[in-house]
């Protein structure tokens, strides 16, 4: 069994001429569920929660993606968790919601390089080109639910549950080497 990726130091884990896979530094991850008029939460978070599924809104060092009609994932620096939690708690009276710290649940792998999009097709049945730059999607990668963020034409981030990350990384690493051989 492969060791959980979270035990490794952030940095490049595998690289070839096709793509590079790195472990991102830990960050705060907050799962937010709410319905109705989102204005109190927008004020608390200092951003406008996106309402189209897949849309990403960056706000300073915070970043939020809409995952479902009433569901968002917030990424922020680790030391920002308490500030977000207390601001949202103040909004609770006007807009009841659920804000859960899931920081320890997932790790983020960054995948970039000339063949990054092609590399993702080894585990993702979706048309990767259907994800515009600057957006993201929760999708399926070789049996696991992952959040895929597209930061550039050839730059992605993948949030994967820590317990599945060893498997997902091993597959990406193999693909990374195979694609390099194929395009050599």
């Amino acid at each position, binding site marked *: 069994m492969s060791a959980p990726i979270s035990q490794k130091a952030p940095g490049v884990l595998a690289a070839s001429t096709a793509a590079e896979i790195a472990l991102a530094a830990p960050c705060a991850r907050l799962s937010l569920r709410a319905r109705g008029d989102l204005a109190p939460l927008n004020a608390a978070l200092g951003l406008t929660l996106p309402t189209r*599924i*897949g849309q990403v809104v960056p706000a300073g060092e915070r970043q939020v993606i809409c*995952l*479902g*009609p009433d*569901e968002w994932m917030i990424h922020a620096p680790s030391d920002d968790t308490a500030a977000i939690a207390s601001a949202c708690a103040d909004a609770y009276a006007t807009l009841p919601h659920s804000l859960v710290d899931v920081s320890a649940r997932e790790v983020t792998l960054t995948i970039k390089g000339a063949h990054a999009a092609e590399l993702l097709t080894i585990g993702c*049945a*979706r048309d990767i080109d*259907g994800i515009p730059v600057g957006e993201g*999607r*929760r*999708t*399926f990668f070789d049996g696991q*639910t992952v959040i895929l963020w597209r930061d550039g034409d050839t730059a992605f981030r993948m949030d994967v549950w820590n317990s599945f990350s060893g498997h997902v990384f091993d597959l990406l690493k193999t693909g990374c080497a195979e694609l390099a051989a194929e395009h050599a």
Partner: protein
Amino acid sequence: MLLIHCPYCEETLPEAEFTYAGQAHIIRPENPSGQTDDQWEEFLFIRANPKGPHYERWRHFHGCGRFFNAVRDTVSDKFLTTYKAGAPRPDLSTLLPEGQK
């Protein structure tokens, strides 16, 4: 692989992101304790098994997480439509191509 349109994501996506969730439009009894054994049997176990268009629930499990409804032809596996949970059952005559009504 089937491509399924999620009415919440408004995208047509690979079947691998979805899970099947049985027949649609099964109404939970308003007053469960007032149900007879026969009514419970009907609610829990009796399902349509059509050869042709079938109203069924799906869930965009590896995506927005929502349950929604679909009309799928059980012979051809073709999805005639998908629609949000809670929306009325669409009229088959508006879904089938001319000549198959």
